[in-house]
């Protein structure tokens, strides 16, 4: 059996066996819109789930469903063991010890956890929780390419505390403009929040330069890994950051579980965000004390099944090998960029080549609004995302109302990209804007 589904002439053999992988994803065998094969190019929004993840959740509910870290019965013991085993697995996946892994609902909640902890620090009654307090005169730095999830919590933190929000801009080719890094990140900077891989542009950011500058001025660094952890090897030991956040549902895991990784020393100096059961040490009517991390940040009965499901997703990715996942997507991205940019009227918003670039490809089609492009693609069974991709400042920066975005994953093959390219041409035909070939050749 060949390793690829219909490989175009000249294109490299894909590192992953797409046909075998597709068989692991039940949803990929369904049809959409009058019997068409589902071409799922929206993994950047949420990924599909392999059978092993679905089985792990079902197995939990059928065999040892109980609230972890409570109760002395056998089911509670087994649930606790499975929950903590998943924490160890997920931690190892990013090179982190388990006590630095906090489970949240998703990346958004993980970022809010940190943002609220930093403002709660200012009013904490415990002196040891005030170390990273943010207040008037302090600065928080983000970038113009952040997902709203890594922008609004910081805007709000600044509004609550009187701190100032600053940001690094973008270059015309979709990269961070680091020319003023030295002034934007300065002695007043308390935290720098930056994405590792842009969800809309696909850009992979040069984190080393940013973390080095943050170190110089003693600022914390939070990396948004929602689009990087699912698609490339990430090791917190070499990341140079204090926090990393990612979402389970974008990496073959269930919805409702995300991760905040934090350096233990930093987590230990932060007050809680949400309070309640599980996160306490001693509770009295007059006041309470809290558990050490990670429990301090996990109030209430956790999303046990989802955590166990995410553990299974991580094991699935580990079996494939994250280096292979990255190489697979690089090959697809190179092919897709070449094919899409060969269509007259198509403009890629973001890096036009594969240098420091992931597999999120945003583009516009001259004369057709992205919603209408998406509708034609949907009619052909192709699922893409259209709109501003929760990164409104980015589309504004590039002067477009919205884009069409295709994202790839482990089950994506060349045939999916061919379908996308044919679909874009079909949209041009349908709306009567197909430019003549000579126009493309002479431009």
């Amino acid at each position, binding site marked *: 059996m060949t390793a690829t589904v219909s490989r175009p002439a000249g294109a490299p053999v894909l590192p992953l066996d797409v046909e075998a992988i597709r068989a692991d994803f039940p949803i990929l065998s369904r049809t959409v819109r009058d019997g068409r094969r589902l071409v799922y190019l929206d993994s950047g929004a949420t990924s599909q789930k392999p059978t092993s993840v679905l089985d792990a959740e079902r197995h939990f509910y059928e065999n040892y469903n109980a609230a972890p870290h409570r109760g002395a019965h056998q089911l509670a013991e087994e649930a606790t063991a499975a929950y903590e085993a998943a924490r160890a697995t997920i931690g190892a996946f990013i090179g982190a010890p388990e006590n630095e892994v906090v489970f949240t609902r998703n990346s958004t909640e993980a970022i809010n956890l940190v943002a609220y902890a930093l403002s709660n620090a200012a009013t904490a009654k415990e002196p040891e929780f005030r170390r990273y307090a943010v207040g008037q005169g302090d600065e928080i730095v983000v970038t113009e390419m952040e997902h709203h999830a890594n922008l609004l919590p910081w805007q709000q933190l600044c509004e609550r505390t009187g701190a100032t929000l600053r940001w690094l801009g973008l270059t015309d080719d979709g990269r961070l403009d680091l020319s003023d890094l030295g002034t934007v990140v300065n002695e007043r900077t308390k935290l720098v929040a930056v994405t590792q891989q842009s969800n809309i542009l696909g850009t992979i950011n040069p984190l080393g330069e940013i973390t080095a500058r943050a170190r110089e001025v003693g600022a914390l660094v939070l990396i948004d890994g929602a689009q990087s952890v699912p698609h490339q090897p990430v090791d917190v030991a070499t990341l140079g950051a204090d926090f990393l956040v990612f979402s389970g549902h974008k990496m073959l895991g269930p919805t409702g579980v995300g991760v905040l990784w934090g350096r233990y020393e930093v987590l230990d100096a932060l007050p809680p965000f949400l309070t309640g059961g599980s996160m306490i040490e001693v509770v009295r009517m007059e006041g309470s004390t809290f558990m050490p991390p990670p429990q301090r940040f996990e109030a209430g009965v956790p999303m046990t099944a989802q955590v166990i499901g995410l553990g299974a997703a991580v094991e699935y990715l580990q079996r494939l090998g994250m280096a292979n996942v990255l190489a697979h997507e690089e090959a697809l991205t190179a092919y897709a960029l070449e094919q899409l940019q060969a269509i007259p009227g198509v403009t890629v918003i973001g890096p036009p080549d594969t240098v420091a670039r992931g597999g999120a490809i945003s583009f516009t089609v001259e004369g057709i609004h992205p919603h*209408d492009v998406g509708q034609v693609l949907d009619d052909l069974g192709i699922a893409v995302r259209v709109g501003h991709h929760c990164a409104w400042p980015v589309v504004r920066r590039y002067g477009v109302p919205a884009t069409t975005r295709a994202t790839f994953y482990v089950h994506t093959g060349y045939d999916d990209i061919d379908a996308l390219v044919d679909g874009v041409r079909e949209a041009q035909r349908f709306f009567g804007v197909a430019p003549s070939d000579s126009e493309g050749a002479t431009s």
Partner: protein
Amino acid sequence: MQLQSMYQDIILDHYRNPHGRGLRDPFEAEVHHVNPTCGDEVTLRVHLDGDTIADVSYEGMGCSISQASVSAMYDLVLGKSVTDALQTGEQFMTLMQSKGDAAVAERLEDDLEDAVAFAGVSKYPARVKCALMSWMALKDASARALSTAPTGENA
């Protein structure tokens, strides 16, 4: 292919050659509405003569459905009383909630004229908001126009 059911020729005609486009004076109210899920925008002005809609002028950017919808709306509401125009808006809302039920479209055909062509859009929940944006803007602008010029004598 189901696309034709959504993109009726009437819709594409309105999209390519919009009626009444451009912002004009005089006006009693101007509103700006956005569709936050996709970033589509419309700026819409209403000019009343008494309680009659004397002009609706607009600028906007968005998909074919949202742009065609505002154009078809312009044709429908011009010269109507605010009450009648808003009632037509309610009928359009009913059409958008019909989930492609042909009986609903048939019943509303006489009142909605060209706008009944949007019946196909009602089968696509994600696009219903696109078609409704301009009608929401009209409702908002009319209410403001009535409250700022309660007598209509200065119109």
